[in-house]
């Protein structure tokens, strides 16, 4: 079965990312596919490359990057959510004349159309709420 994930909760102040990561791992290890992982609302904060959680705690950014690399996942962030919360790639940083960009490797910034497309082409869409 092919899944689309719609993740909404803030990385360290909600359970959204933990649940989604566990679900994704279970899904993929059972041989199912994940068409796209879409990050919306505060969930986009996970792609801030400047986060440095304590070393004996789970690093959610790294966890997604590793899973994304292992299974060639499309880790897609909503551009409007990103801009509002200060997650910028090089071109957005340039466009808004900011002094730096901070998008973590392995994530890409795109639009809400990607969430809609993923919802329509996948067999199931699973939302991890805020």
């Amino acid at each position: 079965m092919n899944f689309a994930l719609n993740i909404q909760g803030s990385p360290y102040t909600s359970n959204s990312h933990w649940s989604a990561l566990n679900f994704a791992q279970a899904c993929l290890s059972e041989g199912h596919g994940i068409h796209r992982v879409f990050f919306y609302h505060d969930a986009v904060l996970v792609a801030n490359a400047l986060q440095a959680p304590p070393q004996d705690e789970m690093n959610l950014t790294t966890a997604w990057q590793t899973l994304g690399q292992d299974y060639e996942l499309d880790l897609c962030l909503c551009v409007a959510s990103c801009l509002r919360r200060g997650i910028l790639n090089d071109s957005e940083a340039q466009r808004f004349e900011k002094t730096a960009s901070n998008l973590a490797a392995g994530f890409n910034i795109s639009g809400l159309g990607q969430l809609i497309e993923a919802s329509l082409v996948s067999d199931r869409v699973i939302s991890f709420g805020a």
Partner: protein
Amino acid sequence: MTQLLFILSHPPGSSIYAQEAFDAALAGSAFSNIALLFVGAGCLQLIEPKLAVEAHQRKDFQRGFRALPDYDVHNVYGCEDSFNQFRLHNQALVIQPTLLTQPDISALLKSVQRVLTF
């Protein structure tokens, strides 16, 4: 046939989630046939927000509800139990949704192709 059902469960004002969820629904309306279902505290989004908007200087995104027919969105539902819980029957609302009972909601969930919960 409704392809995407957007369930809206966040109250307005306490976070930006309600406003962003409505953005997602509008994006959905550009690609497919959608319906909206307001549940729980999400029903509070339907209250005419004039005072709150002025007091907190926030964007009056609920004004967009009135434009839904222009986006070809004609199926807007509200949970009747939530309306009772929040005593919304005599409130001035931005738009009046079609109220659904719990069995109606179950039938709706079965009839749509995909559900996106916000």
